[in-house]
């Protein structure tokens, strides 16, 4: 014990050191969305300058591509970042949950002249008339075009007169098959962003009076049809593009023009070899494009609002912006910077003014950026329009009906929730009942214990030894299990006390197509991974069991995947499945097969994950089989061979029965773990070229636990998430019991 003591002391000192934040300075957290080296380095420069000017303030920089989710959960947890970057798309839900600080009072108090900013940028960050984030920059849609290809095909450059028809006609002339091999080398254009094309055609999908989606607009169907008509002719299909992004195709000279956004400018400027330029987007019924404004917001729960406001002001000031360098990926919201030839308006490209002037006609999406908007986009819009790419028989009418139907369902459930929910009290104690539950359980347990000990005096020792587990069990397992059972019948979002709603969560889940999809996906996954892993593991175990020298070495190699299971390996496999640069498609290319797009294709994403899971999951069962094989008595084989059995018959009648307990064990373990797959899918399908949300293109890899995580931690529907967890438990329990029943027929425990 004496030897251990210094260790423990050192460890505790470590913890304290780690958890204690810097004393006297005010420390604020800034959550940025930047994930590229250069940008983060720039932000750090800005922070350094700010800290020089304000020595009593320290800024802790964090950056994540998943920032809004982090902000939401942190706010719910009571520890929000003080300042965060936010855009038009994501601001309304946060305002609605009352976790953003309104900036108008601060602007008025400090008498800031808002005329310094381009007007539409201010509108872009207003919610219900109030400004909740301070604009920094904005982005619009623009038409990028490759001058060399235009010259080659003798097509005049795009100008203000272009309509979408002109776009398509020009694209037809610009589609080339240079070497006449039947395969198109240069495509005229790319498909247009679906929301943009709907807006430009004048399509109406949302009725602001009734606050519902409507499907009666002819223009929407025309817009969809237009975009679909480009596919495979002027614009490459998914297979033809080999899932390279628009930007990459343009830079490689494989597409003559495309409608992109401001943020693509720097990358294209860096990689584009041919002369190029930008132009205003073609006209539809009117000239319009989608405006996205980025700015900094302050958390309502921040403890250092003044310091946060100083930082926000400095960030958006001319000095601050200049420290960030000329960021061509967005147009500055400050007029003086946007129009400055030394700053933003320096070529390339020549017509950069388009990026500034477009602010005049840019506005929001075809539906309002309300609190439900991001969820609508992620769960209804995006999966629906992705289906156009996946299946050529999907018609515009079907798409529109689906959008209207699912969208209205979403709106209805959202309104119902609004109506039922009590007032938001961000700091209320919503969990007192949980603590009381567990304390009462422990008291109960204590009483039982005392009674038991009184009967058996010596028993107290045993209880003392198992006390750590017993206490931990009640505190961290039993209590939470019961609480989670209770919460399954409540509506709970961490910001308001749990409200009993009976079976509503279950009913909503039953009506939720994504829930069923996640269930199906998990079954598909399990049905492939479990047999695959077990059969392969058995084969490998038999292989390793041969009496050849060196099996020890190979056993070590074969165990590598189990060791390295985790994020690093998932990222490695993500890289392996890259459609152009990954190992898989390279090897397939050696045998002449054109590899699919794997993680960005709705049909191939799940197989990719299955392959990876089998590779990673074989090692464990393999070793268990190996141990089992080595436990099979030799005399059984001798007896069988005396009876004249062949190798295969010996396998079937000696090996398998003797191994059956091991097979059974592996089977149960494999089923239980395959139903709970999370990390692999999360890491492999977040932030891909197809979608930023994990769950794969069109929810094809949305497995059960992933959807549970999203429901609970992203949409903050904790009650529903608990219901999902219990359903999972019951399903696994049922499967295990069923297997146990079945096992009595084929598992032989009598090992003699």
């Amino acid at each position, binding site marked *: 014990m004496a030897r251990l003591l210094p*260790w423990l002391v050192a460890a505790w000192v470590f913890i304290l050191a780690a958890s204690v934040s810097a004393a006297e300075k005010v420390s604020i957290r800034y959550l940025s969305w930047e994930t590229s080296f250069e940008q983060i380095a720039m932000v750090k420069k800005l922070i350094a300058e700010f800290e020089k000017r304000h020595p009593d303030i320290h800024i802790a920089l964090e950056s994540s591509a998943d920032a809004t989710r982090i902000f939401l959960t942190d706010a719910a947890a009571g520890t929000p970042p003080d300042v965060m970057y936010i855009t038009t798309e994501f601001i309304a839900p946060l305002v609605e949950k009352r976790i953003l600080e309104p900036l108008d009072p601060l602007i008025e108090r400090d008498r800031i002249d808002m005329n310094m900013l381009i007007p539409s940028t201010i509108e872009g960050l207003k919610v219900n008339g109030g400004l909740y984030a301070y604009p920094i920059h904005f982005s619009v849609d623009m038409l990028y075009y490759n001058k060399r290809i235009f010259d080659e095909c003798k097509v005049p450059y795009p100008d203000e007169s272009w309509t979408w028809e002109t776009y398509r006609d020009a694209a037809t002339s610009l589609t080339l098959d240079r070497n006449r091999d039947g395969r198109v080398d240069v495509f005229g254009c790319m498909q247009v962003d679906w929301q943009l094309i709907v807006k430009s055609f004048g399509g109406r999908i949302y009725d602001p009076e009734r606050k519902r989606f409507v499907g009666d607009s002819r223009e929407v169907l025309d817009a969809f049809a237009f975009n679909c008509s480009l596919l495979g002719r002027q614009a490459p299909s998914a297979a033809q593009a080999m899932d390279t992004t628009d930007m990459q195709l343009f830079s490689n000279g494989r597409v003559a023009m495309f409608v992109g956004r401001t943020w693509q400018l720097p990358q294209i400027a860096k990689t584009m070899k041919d002369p190029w330029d930008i132009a205003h987007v073609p006209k539809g019924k009117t000239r319009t494009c989608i405006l996205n404004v980025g700015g900094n917001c302050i958390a309502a729960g921040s403890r250092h609002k003044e310091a946060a406001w100083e930082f926000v002001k400095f960030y958006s000031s001319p000095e601050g912006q200049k420290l960030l360098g000329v960021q061509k990926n967005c147009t500055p919201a400050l007029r003086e910077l946007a129009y400055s030839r030394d700053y933003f308006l320096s070529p390339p490209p020549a017509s950069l003014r388009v990026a500034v002037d477009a602010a005049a006609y840019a506005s929001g999406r075809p539906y309002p950026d309300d609190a439900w908007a991001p969820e609508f986009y992620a769960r209804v819009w995006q999966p629906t329009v992705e289906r156009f790419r996946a299946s050529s028989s999907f018609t515009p009418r079907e798409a529109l009906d689906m959008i209207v139907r699912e969208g209205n369902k979403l709106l209805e459930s959202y309104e119902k929730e609004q109506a039922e929910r009590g007032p938001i009290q961000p700091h209320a104690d919503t969990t007192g009942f949980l603590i009381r539950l567990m304390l009462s359980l422990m008291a109960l347990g204590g009483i039982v214990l005392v009674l038991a000990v009184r009967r058996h005096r010596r028993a107290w020792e045993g209880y003392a*030894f198992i006390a750590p587990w017993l206490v931990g069990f009640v505190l961290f*397992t039993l209590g939470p*299990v019961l609480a989670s059972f209770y919460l399954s019948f409540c509506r709970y979002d961490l910001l308001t006390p749990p409200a009993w709603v009976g079976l509503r969560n279950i009913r909503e889940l039953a009506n939720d197509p994504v829930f069923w999809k996640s269930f199906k996906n998990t079954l598909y996954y399990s049905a492939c991974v479990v047999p695959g892993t077990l059969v392969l593991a058995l084969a490998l175990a038999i292989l390793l069991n041969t009496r050849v020298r060196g099996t020890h070495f190979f056993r070590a190699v074969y165990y590598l995947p189990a060791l390295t299971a985790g*994020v690093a390996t998932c990222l490695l496999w993500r890289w392996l499945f890259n459609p152009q*640069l990954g190992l898989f498609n390279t090897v397939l290319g050696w045998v002449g097969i054109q590899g699919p797009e794997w993680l960005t294709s709705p049909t191939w994403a799940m197989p990719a994950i299955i392959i990876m899971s089998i590779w990673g999951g074989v090692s464990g069962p393999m070793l268990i089989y190996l141990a089992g094989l080595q436990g099979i008595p*030799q005399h059984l084989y001798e007896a069988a061979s005396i009876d004249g059995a062949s190798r295969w018959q010996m396998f079937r009648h000696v090996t398998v029965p003797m191994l059956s307990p091991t097979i059974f064990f592996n089977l149960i373990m494999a089923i239980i773990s395959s139903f709970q797959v999370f990390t692999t899918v999360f890491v492999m399908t977040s932030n891909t070229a197809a979608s930023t949300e994990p769950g794969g293109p069109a929810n094809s890899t949305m497995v059960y636990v992933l959807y549970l995580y999203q429901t609970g931690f992203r949409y903050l529907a904790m009650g529903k998430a*608990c219901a999902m967890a219990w359903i999972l438990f019951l399903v696994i329990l049922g499967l295990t019991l069923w297997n146990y029943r079945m096992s009595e027929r084929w598992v032989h425990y009598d090992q003699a």
Partner: protein
Amino acid sequence: MSERVAKVGTEMTAEEMLRREARSAAEVVQRGNGGGSPPSDGQGPPSVARRGWGVRVQRWLWLTFVYCLLVLGGIIFAMPFLWMVRTALMDYVQVQKIPLEWIPRPVRWNNFAEALSFMDFWVLLRNTLIITILAITGQLLSCSLVAFGFARLQFPGREFLFIVLLSTMMLPAMVTEIPRFILFRHFGWIDTFLPLVVPAFFGAPFFIFLLRQFFKTVPQDLDDAARIDGCNSWRIWWQIMLPLSKPVLAVVVIFGFIWTWNDFWGPLVYLRTADKKTLSLGLQVFQGIYQTYYHYLMAASLVVLAPVLALYVFCQRYFTQGIVMTGLKG
């Protein structure tokens, strides 16, 4: 459960003896005949040795076939890591070249330093180490205590509680995650290491099970002798059981290390500020929305995996021992 353990245990010893006898018999025959005997592969019997070249050729063919399969398997399992090394040593431009190249030219050892500095490696390493060491310590202490209680001490409800322990292993983690999050939030532990470390001091069912099975195989006589000498249970645990269990404890340390080192969910949910994050979260940094810096990502991943691999190389036999001990009991 314990009864079946004992039964299989004794049977195995008997089978071991039988097998050894059969093997030595075959060897005697083999030496007598001077020819090769067909190898036994755990599936076929050591058949009677036959003379001649035909048999030798057969054995060579068999060996070649087996080795081919082994090497093929080895390639499939090791290839991703070779690919990782290859990417980690390449220039970003070379990584993106089509058609693909295998040899890095030039070999960029710098990648490692740059990647590590970008992801704030030392901070993440410190955090991951703190969490891992604390968690392992907690698990060692608590699991051995509890396992000793279940294995050696009598108290009412012992079997019942053990079954409860086992059934918690079957509980999907998700069922308790959300209330645990709420609980830790109530304690104010969000954004600290505590939610990741404190539960380890209350035992982990898997390790308790493992240790209990092992303790059961230690003869009761040692305990009885110690008690006669006047030891109480604590001293028996500390001075007799633990020293004897070094191999199993090593297994607990190794598996605990791997699981905590690679843990993703826990840090994802409970750690917020950048200077508290762990290595597995840190790797996400290289994935941009617009592009992923694969060479840095692979270099950093290699570094994150290195301790686990090093541990494996040094402690190989403990791994297989550990797996065998948990799995065989069926």
